[in-house]
C-alpha cells in the first residue's frame, strides 16, 4: 500500500485537542502497576541497572582519558531504556549526545556508540543498519530529520516510526517548532520525546519556558501531548509504546514530555556546584528510577537475591567489556580525513590528500 496519491496533510477541522494532564502520568506505586507483566518489570529493572552501570563506566573512562567528554544520563535511565524498548527493529531513533544509553539499549555496540565522545570519529555505528541516526550535537537539529525520514517511509508505504529525542533546553530552538509543525501537517509517524531534566547545562527550567509543561506545546500544533513521570520506567514505557502505536496506525505525531532530573553535572567537564544545591539533587534521589522499580518489584514479591545477582553480574560483564575495549587505542588512518567528504574526492581534495600522504610518509621514514 502506498499513500503516494493521497494528500499528505489533513485539513484544519479536527476537534480542538484536550489540554494534557497537569500532573505527570505515573504507574509504579499505583494500583495499575499491579497489572503489569512480571517479565516487563524485571526486564526494565535489569536494563536500568545495566544502564546506570554503563553511565558509571563511561564517566570513569573520562577520568582515565579514554573519553574526551561524557554527558551522563544517570537519573534518566528510565527514559533512555523506555525509548529503546518502545521501538521495533524497523523504527528509527534520533538521539542527542546525552542519549548514548538509549542507543546502547537498542543493541548498538557500546564502543561504537562512544566513538563521537572518544574522539576517533564523528559517528561510530552504521546508521542505516541499526536505524539509529548519529548522535546529534547541535540541539534540536535532528528533529526535522526524524520528521523527514518518517514522512519518506510513509510515502514509500513502509511501516516505520521515528522517535526523536530532545532536551528541555532544545525545545527553545526554532528547529523544534518547525519539526513539530511539519510532522503535524504531514501527519508523519513521529514521536517527539522531550526529556525534561530540569537543566540546560546551568540554565534552569524557569529561564527556559513559561509553559505549564512542554506537553502543552502539542496543543499549538494540533497533536496530542502527554506528560509522564520520567523516572517511572513503566509509565514512560507505556506512554511511548502507545504513541508509537498511534503513529503506526496513521494517527500522526505525539509530543511526550518526561519529567526527570539530571543527577550528574552536564558533563564531566561541568561543575554543577556553581549553579545548583546538592539538596536539590538529594531530593531527586528519592525518586530514583531504579529505586522506584525496586519498590514495585518488592511489593510484587519479585525482588530476590537471584534477580539482583543476575542483574548485577550482567552489568559488571558489560562494564568490564566496555572498559577493556575502550582501553584499546582505536586504529586511525589520517587519510580518512579525505575519504568521505564527497562520493569522489574533488581535484582539490586529491591535491591536499597527496600533501598529507607525503608528510605521513616523511614522518614514517624519519
Amino acid at each position: 500500500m502506498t499513500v503516494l496519491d493521497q494528500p499528505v496533510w489533513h485539513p484544519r477541522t479536527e476537534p480542538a485537542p484536550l489540554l494534557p494532564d497537569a500532573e505527570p502520568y505515573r504507574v509504579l506505586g499505583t494500583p495499575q502497576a499491579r497489572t503489569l507483566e512480571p517479565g516487563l518489570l524485571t526486564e526494565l529493572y535489569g536494563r536500568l541497572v545495566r544502564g546506570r552501570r554503563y553511565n558509571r563506566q563511561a564517566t570513569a573512562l573520562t577520568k582515565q582519558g579514554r573519553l574526551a567528554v561524557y554527558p551522563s544520563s544517570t537519573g534518566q535511565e528510565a527514559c533512555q531504556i523506555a525509548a529503546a524498548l518502545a521501538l521495533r527493529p524497523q523504527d528509527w531513533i534520533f538521539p542527542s549526545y546525552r542519549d548514548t544509553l538509549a542507543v546502547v539499549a537498542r543493541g548498538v555496540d557500546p564502543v561504537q556508540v562512544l566513538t563521537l565522545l572518544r574522539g576517533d570519529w564523528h559517528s561510530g555505528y552504521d546508521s542505516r543498519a541499526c536505524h539509529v541516526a548519529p548522535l546529534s550535537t547541535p540541539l534540536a537539529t535532528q528533529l526535522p530529520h526524524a520528521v523527514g525520514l518518517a514522512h519518506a517511509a510513509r510515502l514509500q508505504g513502509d511501516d516505520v516510526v521515528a522517535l526523536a529525542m530532545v532536551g528541555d533546553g532544545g525545545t527553545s530552538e526554532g528547529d523544534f517548532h518547525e519539526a513539530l509543525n511539519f510532522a503535524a501537517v504531514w501527519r508523519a509517524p513521529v514521536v517527539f520525546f522531550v526529556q525534561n531534566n530540569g537543566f540546560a547545562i546551568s540554565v534552569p527550567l524557569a529561564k527556559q519556558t513559561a509553559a505549564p509543561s512542554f506537553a502543552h506545546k502539542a496543543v499549538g500544533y494540533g497533536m496530542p501531548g502527554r506528560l509522564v513521570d520520567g523516572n517511572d520506567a513503566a509509565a514512560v514505557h507505556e506512554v511511548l509504546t502507545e504513541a508509537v502505536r498511534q503513529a503506526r496506525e496513521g494517527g500522526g505525531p505525539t509530543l511526550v514530555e518526561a519529567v526527570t532530573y539530571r543527577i550528574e553535572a552536564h558533563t564531566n567537564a561541568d561543575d554543577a556546584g556553581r549553579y545548583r544545591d546538592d539538596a536539590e539533587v538529594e531530593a531527586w534521589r528519592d525518586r530514583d528510577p531504579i529505586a522506584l522499580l525496586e519498590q514495585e518489584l518488592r511489593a510484587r514479591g519479585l525482588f530476590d537475591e537471584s534477580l539482583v545477582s543476575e542483574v548485577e553480574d550482567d552489568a559488571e560483564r558489560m562494564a568490564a567489556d566496555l572498559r577493556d575495549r575502550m582501553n584499546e587505542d582505536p586504529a586511525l588512518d589520517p587519510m580518512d580525513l579525505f575519504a568521505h567528504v564527497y562520493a569522489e574526492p574533488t581535484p582539490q581534495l586529491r591535491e591536499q590528500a597527496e600533501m598529507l600522504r607525503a608528510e605521513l610518509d616523511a614522518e614514517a621514514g624519519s
Partner: protein
Amino acid sequence: MTTALATARATARKPATMAQALNRALRDALADDPSVHLLGEDIGTLGGVFRITDGLAKEFGDSRCTDTPLAEAGILGTAVGMAMYGLRPVVEMQFDAFAYPAFEQLVSHVSRMRNRTRGELPLPLTIRVPYGGGIGGVEHHSDSSEAYYLHTPGLHVVTPATVADAYGLLRAAIASDDPVIFLEPKRLYWSKADWSPDAPDEVPGIGQAVVRRPGRSATLITYGPSVPVCLEAAEAAEADGWDLEVLDLRSLMPFDDETLTASVRRTGRAVVVHESAGFGGAGAEIAARVTERCFHHLEAPVLRVTGFDIPYPPPMLERHHLPSVDRILDAVARLQWDEGGA
C-alpha cells in the same frame, strides 16, 4: 565526466528559456527516478514564484512536488531526513536571502552527514537557490550568496549561464550522490536559446568549466549571471584591439583548475567578474589560485570586477552596483599593457 555521447540528436532544437529548461529537467528527473521528490514554498499548485515547477504537482502528485509549511530550516531539515531514508529530495529556496534560515542545517548537517558517517549516510540532495540581482527586486531578493556555500566543505556548488547548461547541470545535480547547491541566476530565467533536451552533447558534468569565447589577450573568468555581461564586454573590447577569452566556470566546487590554468597561462592576464561583494567573494579564491598556479605567466595581477562591499542596493540604484561592460573594460585596460605584450 561529461556524458558526451556521440548519438544523433533525436529532436529538433526550439527556442526555450532557461526557466523552461529547468522545468523540463525537474520533470525528466521526476519521471526517470521515483525517489526524486520536490519540496518548497509555493512549488505545487502555483508552480513556484518563478514557475520553475509549473505543472509538476499536477503531473506527479502532491507527494512528489510538495508545498511545505513556510520554514526553510524545516524544509531542508526534513529533506535531510528523507535523503537518510534513501530518497533524492530537490529543495527550492524561494529567494537567495530566504535560504539563510536553513544555514545551520546546511553547514552542520547537509555538508557533513556523509563524512560524519564514513559514507554510510550520503545525502543526495539538490538545493535550488534563485540568486543575484538585476531584476528590480526589493531588499532581500537579490543576494548572491555563493561565497558562503563554496567555503563549506562537503557541498558542491554549480550555476548555469545558458539554457542548455541549466538543463544539463540540474540533471547532473539531482543525479549526484552529494549535496549540490544549484544557483539559478534569476535574471537569466527568461533568457532564450535554441535548445532541445535530447541533445546529449549539451549535458555537462559537474566540475567542468567551459570557454564561452576563445581569445588571446586576456581571460575574463566568470559564472552565472555575469557570463552574458562578460561576453558583451568581449565584443566591445574588440574595438579596442583586445581579443578576450571568456571562461564560464559553471561549477565553483569542484573547481576546474585545469581549464582555468590553461587559459590564463595562454593569455597571461585575467579579470574575475561576479556580482556578489568582492571582499571574501568567489573572486578572491579564483584570483588567489590562478596566481598560485600561473604566477610566472602573469603580466599583471589578476583583477576583480565585483559588486561593492555593501548590502545589495534598492532597485533604483542597483545598476551602479552591478558589474557593467564599462567596468570590465576599465579593468582590462588596467592590465598593464605597456609592460607586457598583448
